[in-house]
Each structure stands twice: as C-alpha cells, then as structure tokens.
C-alpha cells in the first residue's frame, strides 16, 4: 500500500480530528487516528473518545492498494508538522507504516483498524442549516458559564433547546447562567444536553472551517455538526437540565443603563480590595449614581461613584466582582443594561440594542437591614 498527500491536506486534517482523540485512555486504539479508505483518492480521518466522533476527508494521489489503518494521533500530527517537503509519502509494510518526505523517513507502528470504533452518525432527519459563525458566537457567549467541575454532571455542559422557532443555548453553574438564542427556520420542539468537553472540541473544530454553512442534526442519542467535509458527532448526556426558565426574572424593580467600559474599569478597581478581603462589591444605587464599595479588614476600603441612567427604585445589592466582570466582558454593545428584582435575587445583564443573549448572576447575600 502506498499513497502521497500534500502536507497542507494532512496537516489540516489532523488538526480537525485531533480534538476528539482520547488523551487518557485505557484503550490504546482510541489514542489513534483512523485512516479509512473511501475511494482511490480519498481517505477519511476519524478520531473518537467514544463521546465525540470527528470525521474529515483528505485527498491523496499516486495511490496503490489503499487500505485502512490506525496510527498514534499525537505522534503523527507532530511528525507531519515538521516534515520538510510539501509532498508526503505513506507506505505500509506489514504492521509498520513509513512516512517519507524529502530525505526524512519515519517508521510508525500501526494498530488494527478492525478494533477502531464504528463512526456514529445521526439517523433521524432533524437537520437545520445554520450560519457557522453565528453558532460560534452563540457558543462563545454561553459556554463560559458552564460548571467546570466534571463531577457536577448536570451543569458541566451546554443545554440545547429548540422551541418556538428558536434555538437556545443555556449554560449555568451554581451561581450564574448564560443564555444565547437565534431564530431557526424549521419547526422543531426538542432539547438535549451536551458535555462541556464536547462543546470545547466543537468550538475548536468550527474554527478550522473555510465556509459558513453548518448543518446541525440530532436523534435521540447524538447530535451531528457538518461543515466543509467534516462531521462532528457527539453523544447526548442523559441528564435533566434544571428548569432555567424559573430563574429568569419576569420583571424588574430597578434597571440601570451604564457604559460598559467604564463600568468594567470601576469594578476592576474595586476588585483589588475585594480580592484581598471579602469577595463582594457592594453596589448602592441611588438616583443616577451607583456607589461601589469594597473592603478588606487589612487593606482598607475602596469607594467609587459611577453615573448611570436609572429606572425604578433605589437599591443596595452585593455582587461577586468576578462573575460580574466575566459577563460584562462578553457583552459587545457599548452600553449594558442591568435589571434587578431585589437585593437577594438574581440580576440580569444584557446588551442594549442587541437581541438574543443575556446573563444572570446571583448576588452575595445581604442580611435584611
């Protein structure tokens, strides 16, 4: 068996699939990438950690007696990147494969392709066509709120909901939540939960795309994302996502509108003292001024006034600067809107004039005065 491939082809291919290569695994075959022979000039590269499967295609030439094989992924990726010439020749001899380019030759052992798990495809038609860059943005806006703790299964990922002509992505940890939504053209009512790990892989893989067309499909157990000649399929996690709608405030007692950048700067200054002492910043909203106050037993206090537009009642509330900042940084309008319901109740942060996403942050408890 023998074939040639352009360095760029295989290098991109390896980049696309490497996200799903299992890193710590007891099944060595999963640390490999599968070269599946499709036709005379095409190989499919497949990787999986059994939760996510990624498949892409590369074009080969000068081929003879093509067959499928599995080779250690990290190693091959590294080698391919460092080869001197544009043409790379693969030649199999027994169990070994020789990778040649210019004067360099590497000999790599292969693993049995029969042992490699079958690629799992979605087999129901719920397909929608979506803008890849829009989905990428939605992911960026939501995924950071997911709980990073793998043991907190029901929050360690992203909730996908198709409902009322919208696709909605929701992520939450114990203290905050992000929601991003976008209109879709098909009438689908369904929802599922995907792990944070697979969502990170998806984001990375989407970034390698050359076109903006993305096809999303799902069945009872898996979801697939297709773009270019690449397919990523990931397993749906069987958990019940908490009722996030119950958390979203139905109305607000107080609303403020504030310049995003100024607000971020002020919070960062207050955070300095907050970091050393308490974990909170006290916001005292009084007419058109928010007084920010943070204190620590040894480092003293920081006070700062910010001018804002306010609607509704005055309010005092204490917030964790870290959560506030992380959300504010994701907002991409010049002005942001903060909606309050009460001092011990959720705060909603949203951009002004841009629809489709907002954040909810829980406050630090204030004892009644």
């Amino acid at each position, binding site marked *: 068996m023998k074939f040639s491939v352009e360095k760029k082809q295989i290098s991109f291919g390896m980049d696309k699939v490497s996200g799903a290569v299992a890193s710590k695994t007891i099944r060595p075959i999963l640390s490999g990438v599968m070269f599946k022979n499709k036709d005379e000039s095409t190989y499919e590269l497949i990787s999986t950690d059994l939760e996510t499967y990624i498949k892409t295609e590369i074009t080969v030439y000068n081929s003879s007696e093509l067959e499928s094989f599995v080779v250690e992924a990290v190693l091959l990726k590294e080698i391919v990147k460092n080869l001197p010439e544009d043409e790379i020749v693969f030649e199999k001899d027994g169990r070994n494969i020789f990778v040649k380019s210019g004067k360099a030759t590497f000999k790599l052992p292969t693993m049995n392709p029969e042992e490699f798990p079958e690629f799992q495809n979605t087999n129901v038609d719920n397909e929608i066509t979506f803008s890849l860059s829009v989905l990428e943005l939605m992911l960026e806006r939501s995924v950071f709120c997911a709980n990073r*703790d793998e*043991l907190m299964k029901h929050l360690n990922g992203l909730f996908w909901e198709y409902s009322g002509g919208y696709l909605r992505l929701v992520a939450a*940890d114990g*203290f905050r939540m992000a929601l991003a939504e976008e209109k879709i053209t098909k009438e689908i009512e369904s929802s599922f939960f995907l792990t944070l790990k697979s969502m990170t892989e998806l984001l990375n893989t989407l970034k390698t795309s050359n076109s903006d067309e993305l096809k999303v499909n799902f069945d009872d157990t898996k979801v697939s994302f297709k773009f270019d000649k690449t397919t990523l399929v990931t397993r749906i996690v069987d958990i019940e996502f908490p009722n996030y709608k119950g958390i979203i405030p139905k109305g607000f007692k107080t609303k403020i509108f504030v310049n995003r950048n100024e607000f971020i700067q002020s919070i960062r200054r207050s955070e300095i003292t907050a970091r050393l002492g308490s*974990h909170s910043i006290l916001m005292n909203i009084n007419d058109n001024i928010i007084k920010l106050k943070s204190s620590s037993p040894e480092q003293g206090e920081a006070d700062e006034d910010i001018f804002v537009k306010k609607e509704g009642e005055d309010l005092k509330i204490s917030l964790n600067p870290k959560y506030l900042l992380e959300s504010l940084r994701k907002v991409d309008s010049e002005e942001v809107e903060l909606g309050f319901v009460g001092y011990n*109740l959720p705060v909603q942060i949203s951009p002004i004039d841009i629809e489709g996403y907002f954040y909810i942050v829980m*406050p630090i*408890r204030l004892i009644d005065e």
Partner: protein
Amino acid sequence: MKIKRLSQNVISKIAAGEVVTGGYSIVKELIENSIDAGSSKISIEIKNGGKEYIKVKDNGSGMSPDELKLAILPHTTSKIEKIKDLDSISTFGFRGEALHTITSVCRSKISSVEEGSEVGLSLELSGMNIQRESSFSGTSGTSIEIFDLLFNTPARRKFLKSSMMEGRMITEVVQRFSLCYPQIEFEYIKDGQKVYNFVKAVDRKERILRIFPILNEEDLIQIDDFGSKLSVKGYISLPRTSRGNRVGEMFFVNNRYVKQNSLNNALERGYGEMLNKGRFPIAILMIEIDPEQVDVNIHPQKLEVKFSNNAEINEFIKKAVRTSLKGSGGFNLDISHNTFNKTISTDELERLSDRKEVYPEKTFKADNSHYVNNQKTGDKYNGFQNSFSSIEMERKIFRPFKEEKINFTGTYDFIGVFGERYILIQFEKNLLIVDQHAAHERILYEKFKENKTIESQKLLLPLSIKMEDFELELAKDKINRINEIGFGIDFDKKDIIINAIPVIISERYTEETFREVIEELRFEGIEESEKIFKNIIETLACKNAIKTGDVLKEDQARELIDEIFEKNLLVCPHGRPIYMKITFKDLDRFFSR
C-alpha cells in the same frame, strides 16, 4: 470515705462550671455518680426528652440518711479531701457539686440505702427545700428522680431544645456509657418503651450491634493495639458499612468520652481511600494512656482532652486502624514482632515494643545529627524498619525539621510540582517541599478566620438534601449559626433546601460540607461556641482545599507559595506541617560527601 464538705482552700482550686445545661448533662452526672458508687446495674428512664421526668437508679454502695442530707449541699463529696487528692482522681466526680446543682433547679426525689443496711431515707425536694422525708426498707443502692427540669429558672428552661432533640442527646449519653462499661448492666426506658436492656458482658460487641443496627457482626473488626505509652482497643466497621455522619465515631480516653476532631481525623486517615467522600465509619475506640500524658481537663462540659503528644497518638491510631483493616480482623501488633530475629533478648524486645517508629520526634533530637542517629537506629532495629513503607521512613527521617521556623523573606525559585501533591521550590540554600493540600487548607482557614462573618453566595439553583429527623431539628434550632457560617437554608417537609453557600467553598462539596457543619453544631452547648466555630472553619478549609491529586498549574502553585510566604504559615489547621526543608548539608551528608 464519708461525705464531707470541702475546705474553702480546696473549693477555690476547683474550676466552677455550669453543671446543668440540659437533661443530658443531668443524666451524665447521675450515671457518673452511680459508676463511682461501684454499681453493677444502672437503670435510666426519661419522659418527654427528660423535661418531664428523669430517673437514674443504681445498686451501688448507697448513702446513709445523714450522708444523703449532706450530699445535696454545695461542695460536699466523699471523693476527695485535700488539694493533693486532685492530682490522683480515679473517680468521675470530685467537685461535690452535681447533686446540689441538679436538685436546686428541679423538683426531685432521692432515695438511698447504704450498703450493709436495710433501711434507707427518701427525700422529696423542691429546689433546695426538703418537702418530705420518709424511711423505707430495701437493698443497697440509690435512686434519683427529677421532675420538671429547670422549673424554677424559666429563662433557662426556654433554652432547652425540643423534646426530640433533648431525648436524643440523653440517648447518646446512655449509649456512650453502655459502650464504655460492658461489665455494667444498663436499662434504658424512654417514654415508657424499653430501648435498651444490656446484660453484663465481657465484650462490648453485642452492645455495638444493638446501638448501631446497620451493622452486621461480620462488619466489625476488632482493634487491640498497644505501645509503651498508650493502647487502643475497640471495634471499627469495615468500609462497606458507613454512615453519612460522624455519629458513629466515638472515642474514650481512659474511660471518658471525648470529642476531639484530631481523633476523628486520625481514624478517617486510617481508612484513607477505602471510604468514599462524605462517608464515615462506625468506630468505638477505647484509648488508654498514661494519665501523665494527658490533661483530661475535668471541667464538666469540656469533652476535649489535651495530649502531650498529639501527633504521636494520631499516628498510632491511624496505623492501628490501617493495619486492622488490612488484616481485616486479626491483632496486628505481632506483625512487627514477627520480623525480629528470635534470639533477641527480652530486654531488647521490651525496648523494641516501645514502637519507636511512631514517635519519630523522640528518636532524633538535634537537627544536625539526625541522619547519624537514624543510621544507628537503622542498624539496631533493622527488621523493624523493613516492615514500614518507604513513605513512613521518610517522614520519620525528616520530621525533626518541624521545630525550625523559616523566615520567609525574599524570593524563591520555583522548581515544579511533583506527583500532583508536592510543590518544590528553592529558597535560600534549601530545597523546600510544600504539601499542596496542607498549604491551601491553611490559607483558606486564615481567610475564614480573618473575615469574621463569612460571606454567602446565593445559589442559582437551590439544592435539596434529605436529612434525618434529629438533624432537621438541629438545623432549625441552630438556624442563626448556620447563617453566620454562610449557608442559607429553607425547610421543606423532610428536606433542607440550601439556597446560599459560603463564598469560598466549591459547589461540588456543598452537601458534604453542610452535613459536616450540622455534625459540628450537634456539640454546641456541650462545647464552647468558639471552639465549634473553629472546628467548622477547619472543616470548610479542609473540604474545599486543593486535594492531593488535583493538578496544579505553575501559576496556581506559585500563588499558593506566595501566600504561604506572605503570611508565614507553617502548619495546616490540624497541626500537620505544610513543608519540609532539605538543606545542602542534609543532602551532602546523605551522599557521604
């Protein structure tokens, strides 16, 4: 010895303390009196959590009518006479206070027949006033009945907990004595129902099985281990039978029940990974220790003791537990003996059974000679040492660094993180090995301590947890404390809904940490509040610190070290060292340069 009033001199030497804090403290005092009187059978009866009725009856040596009238006066005791007697107390009582304090806050009836006599006196009291006295005939022994607990101090009566809580606390007192004294018959009746009827036994196993119904006989492993200064006897459960709280962990030091976190810790470390997070064993451990090595702190309400060498004792217990679990059943002391050359002299043997291996500090005194010393020990006790794992050996060698305090000023060079466990840095001309968990634990602890109130982060999704009835009661009772610690809770029938948690704890451990807090609060009222609070922040720190095995990135590791330097911290809140120092000299010596 006859009952006498203590002289003013002696009285002033005895720490005064509140004797009656609830029904359980009365039952405890009365049972102690019965045991002091040499009883072989004790019956306890309570109604309505003890608020309505308490009776403790024994078959001990009793009191003559005159003595009885004396016994209820302040500072009257038969157990000591002179100040010197205070140093060698072998009884529970010695203050001559209990009966007086108890009878002055309730209506009561005391009847007693002295040993050798057939006629006894019965006194009916209301507060301190004798309402009626009568003679009766019977066999030797004493019976004390308490009606209307704290009836004449309504302010204090108000502080009693619910009947269920009070009742439960009394049951625990009875359980402890029953477990500690298998040779004494105990009968316990609660609201007309006979809860326990323990016959005289040589061994406490039967009682353990009765008191902890979740245990099967096969689940219990016996521990019987002794060193030169202490011995540990008792039973522990196999890891497969565990509980969600520490109620089943009991320690008795020289027959006194003690509540001491370091002992719980030692026990749990003995189990190590064998128990899942948040699960606790059942363990009844009787620790006997040379009274000189321990300050029992005989203050009536204090359940803590002070050991002159805490670390040694903890290590001993941990090992005893570990070896028993490994051997699952056998006595383990002989394991080390078996490795000896049989020709060893008895003299030598005795010295060896000192089990020096668990007392490393004693083995090496001077910092600069410990290698030499160890060399020596190594030659002599060769067989002995081979039976220890290399880790224990290392700890043994390096333990003496403990005394030395490093003055952290200036900069350090970061070397790396070793084994997801230790951070290695170079400081001055030393290699410092820092335990990541211990270091972080201490930092968190300091943070909690600095901020007098713990901030509380509201939860997006409240967490509902199931708790036992008594735990629910306790949570209701201690709601203010729970708030202070940073938890916010609501009640929903049998569930507790947690809606806010202390800011620095991680979500993952919410339930576990909350359960531990409840567990600690159980002892409030028995222990001082400050002590409880300290224990709780220790727990919060320990639960939420980076664990051994958590992967630290370099900047995280550096941050940790920076804080350790900044605050000059040396030991973790449990007193274990945070770092170990190795000097060039140490290394050169090791490589014989």
